[in-house]
């Protein structure tokens, strides 16, 4: 059967088809990652039978590796010289992300829009100034009405300027895979509009050297009016239309099933994807790959079992038959792994709680060692010279007693990858500066926070891939499913429309609330 798979838990070279895997250069780590494969957006998933090495040389899963795999694999990945550890892998992926070059593509759209709007704003002024400059003497003087028009023109331009600054002069938050239809539409509209005004201006005013200055001023004023209306259109299309909720999106993370529901308005798929990602960083607990797996003691029981030998003369390499037979046999066998899973979970819970208790006590005690020095206590008696510390030193001073408890707790909850000692010290310093209690200090470690909490501020941004069967500029509608893929997990988004609500009315007279005892009931005995 033409299927092979990679269970790409950590494989940062997540390619999807067999041919590209063969051509991959195994030692090249700094290739710009998976740009071409992700733009294809195909969704082939391949399943591999245990005959071939499941985990190739680079994509190891570190300390969760199951040694019982040695039964049927031909390559034991643990001893390969190409293997790298889990921490190295995360470090490498981080480096890779930071070294992606700053894309100029990000700024093309805003730059174009900026030029166009500058051009549009300068045009009325140009209309007014050009006659003055070119044929000033021949112009008819224009009295009070012109002055009124000047003032209104000035104020309208000011309003246009301020509202453009407020609405459109913002750094773009995302680059979309396809054109943003509404924005393109508006830019084309503005361009055509201004171009046609220039055309008429050139033909009617510049050529014959029109002398009626008031007409020219009115012409410029009408341009500014129309620009204001286009800006109104832009406001409605880009900002207002999607505010009224129309669809409910269910977002599920593929690796651990964390899910959320969001209400959005009418958006195209790509804009909805950006919207969802904005909220993903705030609402979803951070993805922790170490928490995903069943303990190997439970899973391994399923694998050791029996081997299937095919005694046929003509071995047709019936691997589906083989695997099906194995699965069926495993299912029939009396299986106690749920029992072990339950006890393992209970044990894990107990362990976490114990460590947590120790951590809380250690932190509380540590915090009692320091106190804030108030201004009036500075000139304290020379009998007790106190060493005055700044927050950093204070943090370092009290970190030592709690370090061990903290480290053990982080290891038990598998969060040690997210918090380095430096970050813990910085956080401690922050908490001390702001007079926080030990509980407030620990809030960050006791619950896995949203992904936003763990982001390093880099200007390069995060790479997500939008995988969808429909063109991404089409509007959301019922039953649409698209997914947002990252290296090691993806978010699957399902769209359902919000139900139509029929609201009825019932009037209750406040005087109608009356009560009586219940009727005499009669029971036969």
């Amino acid at each position: 059967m033409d299927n092979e798979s990679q269970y790409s838990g950590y494989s940062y070279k997540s390619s999807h088809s067999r041919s590209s895997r063969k051509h991959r250069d195994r030692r090249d780590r700094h290739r710009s990652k998976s740009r071409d494969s992700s733009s294809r957006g195909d969704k082939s998933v391949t399943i591999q039978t245990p005959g071939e090495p499941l985990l190739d040389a680079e994509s190891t899963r570190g300390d969760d590796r199951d040694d019982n795999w040695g039964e049927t694999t031909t390559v034991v990945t643990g001893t390969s010289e190409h293997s790298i550890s889990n921490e190295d892998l995360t470090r490498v992926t981080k480096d890779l992300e930071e070294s992606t070059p700053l894309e100029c593509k990000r700024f093309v759209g805003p730059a174009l829009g900026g030029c166009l709007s500058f051009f549009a704003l300068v045009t009325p002024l140009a209309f007014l100034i050009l006659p003055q400059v070119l044929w000033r003497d021949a112009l008819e003087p224009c009295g009070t009405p012109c002055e009124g028009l000047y003032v209104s023109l000035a104020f309208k331009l000011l309003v246009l300027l301020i509202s453009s600054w407020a609405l459109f002069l913002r750094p773009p938050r995302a680059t979309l895979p396809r054109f943003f239809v509404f924005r393109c539409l508006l830019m084309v509209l503005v361009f055509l509009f201004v171009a046609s005004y220039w055309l008429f201006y050139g033909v009617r005013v510049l050529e014959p050297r029109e002398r009626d200055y008031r007409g020219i001023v009115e012409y410029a004023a009408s341009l500014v009016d129309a620009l204001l209306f286009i800006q109104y259109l832009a406001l409605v299309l880009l900002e207002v239309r999607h505010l009224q909720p129309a669809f409910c999106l269910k977002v599920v993370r593929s690796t651990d099933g964390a899910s959320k529901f969001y209400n959005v308005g009418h958006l195209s798929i790509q804009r909805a994807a950006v919207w969802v990602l904005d909220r993903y960083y705030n609402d979803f607990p951070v993805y922790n790959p170490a928490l995903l797996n069943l303990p190997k003691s439970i899973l391994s029981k399923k694998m050791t079992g029996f081997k299937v030998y095919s005694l046929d003369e003509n071995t047709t390499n019936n691997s589906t038959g083989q695997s099906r037979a194995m699965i069926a046999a495993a299912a029939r066998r009396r299986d106690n792994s749920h029992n072990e899973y339950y006890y393992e979970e209970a044990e894990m819970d107990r362990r976490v709680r114990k460590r947590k208790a120790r951590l809380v006590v250690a932190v509380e005690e540590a915090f009692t060692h320091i106190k804030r020095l108030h201004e009036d206590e500075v000139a304290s008696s020379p009998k007790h010279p106190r060493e005055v510390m700044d927050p950093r030193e204070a943090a370092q001073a009290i970190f030592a007693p709690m370090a061990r408890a903290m480290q053990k707790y982080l290891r038990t909850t598998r969060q040690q990858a997210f918090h380095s000692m430096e970050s813990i010290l910085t956080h401690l310093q922050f908490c001390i500066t702001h007079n926080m209690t030990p509980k407030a200090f620990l809030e960050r470690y006791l619950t896995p926070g949203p992904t936003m909490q763990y982001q390093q501020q880099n200007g390069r941004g995060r790479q997500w891939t939008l995988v969808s069967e429909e063109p991404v500029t089409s509007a959301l509608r019922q039953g649409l499913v698209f997914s947002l893929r990252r290296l090691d997990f993806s978010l699957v988004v399902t769209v359902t429309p919000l139900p139509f609500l029929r609201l009825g009315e019932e009037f209750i007279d406040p005087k109608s609330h009356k009560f009586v005892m219940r009727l005499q009931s009669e029971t036969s005995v």
Partner: protein
Amino acid sequence: MAFIPGQPVTAVVQRIEIQKLRQGDNLILGFSIGGGIDQDPGQNPFSEDKTDKGIYVTRITPGGPADAAGLMMGDKIMQVNGWDMTMVTHDQARRTLTKKKEDVVRLLVTRKSLEEAVKQSMSYPRQ
């Protein structure tokens, strides 16, 4: 048969013993009760004092065990097997009467005619 809160209730009662009749899976007594502290006392046709929330006999099956024992319609049940019935909910009364483990209920009932009979007999001086 009004009662004054805080004062003991006195009444002339008749002791009636009813043997329950077995009908299939149930033990029946052959009468219906009404009243109780959770019911509306104003709707009780048998009580003199319309604030009386006691348990009254509202119907008797003719030929049933209660009829044979001498229970009459309109009787107020004061006690059942020693359990008080003057301050119980309707459901509690029902449950007390229909306990499956008891074959016999001994009721203390009172009615207007009893009072009058006693008064009359007391007004005639004994010879």
